[in-house]
């Protein structure tokens, strides 16, 4: 064949077409001359959508952030445990009850581990559960509205860290305590730790239709530190596994004193057995005091209820329900592979990973091959439950996720790397450096029975020089890997907000179609809502003043208010009358000692304002809602406390 000048351009064109096909991501991991670049793999063209949602815990931000993968673009911050002046969460009268606890109003927490609801071990995308580590709480976020719907406080707990992981049909969301504490709390010397402190493992049932949470029972374990956990799945469904450290039961200088035992434990809990026990009347009801806060979308408001009792279970009274699996060197992550056979203890002070076998564990239990007991709980022999160890060559293994193709991906904090290994052979396949000191890794669905093994995101604890410097305080850094081939390929660095401890990813096609656009005004059951402009009004009750206000492009009704006095407590109840997607309005009042409100179409929110100075004070819309946004404003006349001006209101007069 003669290569003419004419045919050259067409050959070039064919080459371009091949490259273009490759970059669309249909041919996974094909390397060679036609391989696409990392940039092409993460490029999501303007107007196009990402393939996955990724929910990153915000750590000490107290909130959850939503990102797209593979682009690494942040879409939203969902307020959960922290007040959020951006939209008034935790400041508005409707959402203040969400942050109520037995310690009163707690406007912050340390949000750690998101987990998406599952059906038959597969992500179903109804809700995402997260834990507050500091003042122990579990929250449920609705994945239609991306709003926090429910928060339940966990009694008898402190440092709610081995949480919030769910069983394979979302029967339970499980919360284990990291710090053991006296149960019930009492005034005793800290030196009396040993034997007096307990570690509560809480099983919170989830109502299948509504997602409503209920503290079903707490297993009162010995006073170790319960670090992380994961459910059994498939054949091990019905079990839950918790790593422990500080089996030394030290209360001081834990970095030394809790690192003395060569082996700590993985606690294996047969929750089905305990569930049966409590359903048959087992367990002890003990007095407690913990908050249950529920937000209703119908009323756009939350209610907080204090619960006064919790059902506790002494594990020694349910034979065959709880066992200890010796696991080397203060294991941190506790991860179960998609088949449910392997339970991986990431011994953080070790170079090796411990892989336990569920089948061997059951065989050892049936053969009663125990190596003594701890506080009445049978301890199995290490050799009897061990499937094998991964000689990783790394240092400081923390967490493991799975790709559904027989591979596991473990993070190593100290050696700062992500290591891929084969679950069956336990041979290392690949290792890639992380920048720097990786904590968790996340593969969408990577802790479920059906992972989507295309991308892995490493969440690094140390950022240093990865971005332009921004003074001493830096955001954390995540790294996206393509794991579709044999070798992991680093694609992208992107900053993450707060300190992500773990994340949860899910294909966009599961969530995007059901994402809600507006709240229907006619379904608004808020007690202070005004559904049409004629009902706007002001009601005075002593020094309490209720302003029933509505907003629509581009005015407030009413926008001239008189008859407010110094010393009044003014409640602005504002309903957004828009029924159009992405047309929120904001409300800001000069001198308000709280925050603004950002009100979605069809929603009602309430801000309290306590005017302290006589005068005429403006309020305005904070969200650039329309071409006449700058005109969307109003005035409140504030008169002296002793004046007798009756409330009046108007619009356009």
């Amino acid at each position, binding site marked *: 064949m003669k290569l003419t000048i004419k045919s050259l351009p067409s050959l070039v064109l064919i080459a371009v077409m091949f490259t273009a096909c490759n970059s669309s991501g249909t041919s996974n991991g094909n390397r060679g001359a036609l391989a696409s670049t990392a940039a092409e793999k993460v490029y999501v063209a303007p107007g196009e959508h990402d393939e996955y949602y990724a929910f990153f815990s915000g750590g000490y931000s107290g909130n959850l952030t939503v990102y797209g993968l593979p682009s690494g673009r942040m879409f939203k911050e969902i307020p959960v445990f922290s007040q959020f002046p951006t939209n008034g969460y935790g400041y508005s009268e409707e959402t203040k009850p969400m942050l109520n606890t037995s310690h009163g109003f707690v406007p912050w927490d340390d949000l750690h581990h998101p987990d998406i609801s599952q059906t038959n071990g597969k992500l179903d995308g109804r809700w995402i559960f997260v834990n507050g580590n500091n003042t122990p709480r579990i929250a449920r976020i609705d994945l239609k509205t991306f709003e926090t719907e429910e928060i339940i406080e966990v009694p008898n707990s402190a440092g709610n860290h081995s949480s919030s992981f769910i069983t394979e049909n979302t029967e339970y969301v499980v919360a284990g305590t990291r710090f053991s504490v006296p149960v019930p709390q009492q005034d005793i010397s800290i030196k009396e730790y040993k034997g007096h402190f307990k570690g509560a493992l809480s099983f919170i049932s989830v109502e299948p239709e509504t997602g409503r949470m209920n503290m079903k029972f707490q297993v009162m374990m010995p006073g170790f530190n319960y670090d992380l956990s994961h459910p059994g799945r498939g054949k091990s469904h019905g079990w839950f596994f918790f790593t422990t450290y500080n089996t030394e039961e030290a209360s001081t200088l834990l970095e030394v004193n809790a690192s003395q035992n060569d082996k700590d434990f993985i606690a294996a809990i047969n929750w089905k057995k305990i569930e049966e026990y409590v359903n048959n009347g087992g367990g002890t009801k003990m007095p407690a005091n913990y908050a249950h806060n529920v937000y209703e979308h119908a009323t756009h408001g939350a209610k907080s209820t204090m619960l006064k009792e919790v059902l506790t279970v002494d594990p020694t009274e349910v034979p065959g329900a709880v066992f200890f699996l010796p696991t080397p060197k203060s294991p941190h992550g506790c991860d179960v592979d998609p088949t449910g056979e392997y339970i991986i203890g990431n011994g953080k002070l070790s170079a090796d990973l411990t892989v336990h076998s569920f089948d061997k564990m059951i065989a050892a239990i049936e053969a009663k091959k125990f190596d003594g007991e701890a506080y009445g709980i049978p301890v199995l022999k290490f050799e009897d439950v061990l499937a094998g160890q991964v000689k990783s060559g790394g240092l400081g293994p923390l967490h493991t996720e799975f790709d559904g193709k027989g591979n596991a991906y473990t993070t190593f904090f100290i050696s700062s790397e992500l290591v891929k290994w084969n679950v069956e052979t336990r041979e290392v396949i690949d290792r890639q450096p992380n920048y720097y000191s990786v904590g968790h890794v996340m593969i969408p669905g990577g802790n479920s029975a059906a992972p989507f093994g295309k991308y892995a995101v490493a969440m690094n604890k140390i950022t240093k020089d990865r971005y332009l410097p921004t003074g001493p305080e830096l955001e954390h850094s995540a790294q996206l890997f393509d794991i579709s081939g044999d070798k992991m390929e680093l694609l992208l660095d992107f900053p993450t907000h707060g300190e992500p401890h773990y994340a949860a990813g899910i294909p966009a096609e599961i969530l995007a179609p059901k994402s809600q656009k*507006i709240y229907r005004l006619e379904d608004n059951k808020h007690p202070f809502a005004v559904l049409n402009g004629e009902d706007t009004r002001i009601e005075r009750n002593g020094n309490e003043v209720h302003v029933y206000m509505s907003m*629509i492009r581009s005015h407030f009704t009413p926008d001239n208010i008189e008859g407010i006095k110094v010393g009044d407590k003014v409640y602005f109840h504002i309903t957004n009358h828009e*029924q159009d*997607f992405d047309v929120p309005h904001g409300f800001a009042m000069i001198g308000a000692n709280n925050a603004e409100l950002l009100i979605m179409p069809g929603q009602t929110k309430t801000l309290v304002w306590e005017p302290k100075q006589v005068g005429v004070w403006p309020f305005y819309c904070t969200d650039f809602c329309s071409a*006449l946004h700058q005109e969307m404003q109003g005035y409140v006349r504030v008169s002296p406390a002793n004046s007798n001006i009756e409330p009046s209101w108007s619009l356009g007069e």
Partner: protein
Amino acid sequence: MKKAGILMIIGSLLLLGLFRFPLWNIMLGAPQYPDPLGMDIYITGIKGVNEFDIQNIDGLNHYIGMQTIPKPGEMWEFRVFPLVVAIMAVSGAIIGLLGFFGKINHWWFLGWFGLMAVLGVLGMHDFNLWLSDYGTDLDPHAIMKMIHPNGTPMTYKPPLLGHQKMLNFDVDSWPHTGGYLMFTGMGLTLIAFFIGKRSKNIVQ
């Protein structure tokens, strides 16, 4: 003539589709509305393509002083049009039936078609008058009073047929399912006339 009668019946009954499907549709897309707003025009009233489209179109139009989109009770057309369509459909079917049994000849089919065509043109004319009024009878206190480069005030009459750019909106106005059913039905009655005419010629 039997075949012609059947076609006449089918053709005229297709008008009944207007009770189920929109006659016309106007879509409004803009940079801020990647999913365009739209109104479906039925012979019984105007409905939004999506639940809140009418409310949102009215909300946007208030800036330029346009009237709100009329509710069914606010226009006599929405009472009269259904009546006219129903009468025409039934009378067409009766004519077809009589034709089928050879009681009347094919000229009746053409007569029906002619009447329907006249009524249709009148209807379109009326619709266009409303569009003109809707687009030009503007509130003198409108928030935005736009002016053409030549100094004349801008008006906002949507096109009767086709596409037009109006400020930030791309407006597309086309017949919808009910309209297409009506046109098809009228076409069938015309065919019925020609078939009837030919069969008569053959018989002769």
